[in-house]
């Protein structure tokens, strides 16, 4: 009898794995339609200068799939850190034959998460995405250098976060899609524009500038057709 139960349980596990399907969400940094390589120099639009991007890290949270206005799937892993250098893909295991017409997620962590103290995994302070001098997660981190930046070593640093009103930086993103391979391009030529690099090369704290820049980041997310 014990063997029958064991075989039954195993078959259930096997079936549930067979019945699942995988949706892959990937993020690809772009510069003028070309895939951006970290550390490589690119010409800045409307300028004779160039730039390089060294670090791109951001939190994608609360991924959900929707069909005809109803949520049909909620990713059990709430917070996922994308680090373009090491990991730009999120895998979702959804039930077999589930179809959807919309994907929804947030760029950034919610305000509650910012007040819960020390966390593990992608939220561990070791990930370099938690401000030390004040509380709160850095939702998007972009670092690099350009001769156009009037800063020490010509660096630009955008550490974008903030969870308190009126400077909450978390951004909701909604895309219509039915694909199981969802690639989202990040158009860095739209994020790192000439004027931005010249006028505001560093944003290191929560505030209006952080919100403006993270909104620009959100607008630069474009799903591939």
């Amino acid at each position, binding site marked *: 009898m014990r063997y029958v139960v064991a075989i039954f349980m195993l078959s259930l596990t096997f079936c549930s794995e067979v019945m699942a399907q995988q949706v892959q969400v990937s993020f690809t940094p772009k510069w003028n339609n070309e895939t951006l390589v970290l550390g490589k120099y690119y010409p800045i639009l409307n300028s004779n200068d160039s730039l390089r991007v060294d670090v791109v890290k951001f939190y994608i949270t609360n991924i959900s799939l929707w069909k005809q206005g109803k949520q049909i799937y909620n990713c059990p892993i709430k917070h996922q850190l994308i680090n373009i250098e090491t990991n730009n893909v999120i895998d979702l295991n959804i039930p077999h034959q589930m179809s959807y017409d919309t994907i929804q997620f947030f760029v950034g962590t919610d305000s509650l998460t910012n007040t819960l103290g020390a966390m593990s995994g992608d939220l561990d302070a070791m990930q370099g995405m938690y401000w*030390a001098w004040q509380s709160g997660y850095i939702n998007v981190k972009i670092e690099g250098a350009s001769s156009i930046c009037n800063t020490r070593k010509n660096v630009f640093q955008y550490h974008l976060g903030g969870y308190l009103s009126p400077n909450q930086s978390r951004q909701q993103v909604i895309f219509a899609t039915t694909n199981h391979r969802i690639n989202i391009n990040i158009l860095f030529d739209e994020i790192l524009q000439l004027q931005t690099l010249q006028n505001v090369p560093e944003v290191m704290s929560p*505030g209006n500038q952080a919100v403006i820049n993270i909104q620009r980041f959100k607008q630069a997310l474009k799903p591939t057709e």
Partner: protein
Amino acid sequence: MKKQVLVLSALLAMISLFAFTAKYGFLYPAHFPKPVYHFNNNTLSKAKIELGRVLFYDPMLSKDGSISCASCHSSYNAFAHTDHDLSHGINDQIGFRNAPALFNLAWQQQFMWDGAINHLDMQALAPITHPKEMGENIIDVVSKIQSSTLYKTLFKNAYNDTLVTGERLLKAMSQFQLTLVSSESKYDKVIKKQASFTEQEQRGYTLFKQHCNSCHTEPLFSNYSFANNGLPVDSTLNDFGKMNITQKKEDSILFKIPTLRNLSYTFPYMHDGRFKKLNEVLHHYTQGIKHSATLAVQLKNSIYLSPYQKTDLMAFILTLNDSAFVFNPNHKYPHHILSANPNKIPANKL
């Protein structure tokens, strides 16, 4: 039989004096409010508290191995830094704020003089990474600790495996700091009906309730909110307190209200350590208030205290000293662990 009744009565009295949250292992006196720290996310254990204590006293947490948390928060100063107006850091650097006393932290939701930190677990990151304090970063701290044979044992004891993460390290440090409860002063004994105030202390207590209690609220002797207490801004520091964090002008010159417990051990006073003596503090509140837009409403009308009243008030304030807390051996440098392992840090990790 009579003896048994006496013992039983004493036990019942003890039970009535202490609320014990057995689930999370945190003991606090019955006359204290409920703690605000969420122990369900970090259940106390002896091994984790011990790990946190060793980390607290270990200079390995600083860039050059010279400064520990205890360098500016010494147990015999009620975990403040007596005699130094501003905190010290690596390479003999001077910070820009007075190191606050660390105790009764389970009742506090915001930390640092400007409230920059919203959770005890994350507080240690600030001094660890500040270039004028410990000048290190959490990734390198974890790497150094991971390489230490001593910490392998301590982490195994605490977490059942040797894995070092930022979360585990920070939570262990919280655990030790949460055990720093000061509740055995004469005031506490009076509240628990184990002692009585002198007439002078009682007069001082009445004055305290009249003039001080709305901000320095008993029994913690702070409401742990933020206020402008009428100090003129020190032009050598230009510290505007909470406004530095919130960028709101209504938060200008607002600093966290410190507790009045253990003041004999924690001089100098105020966020910039400008007053060395309690007499100077009383003089400020009676004759030194600088009026500005954000001045605390309680200080808008002058406080008058005669010299006799000041003496009475001081007598009461001294009843808030807690020598049992200050000399508690469980809070001191863990000689039995750190001194027994002098070569715990690989040289290439320093």
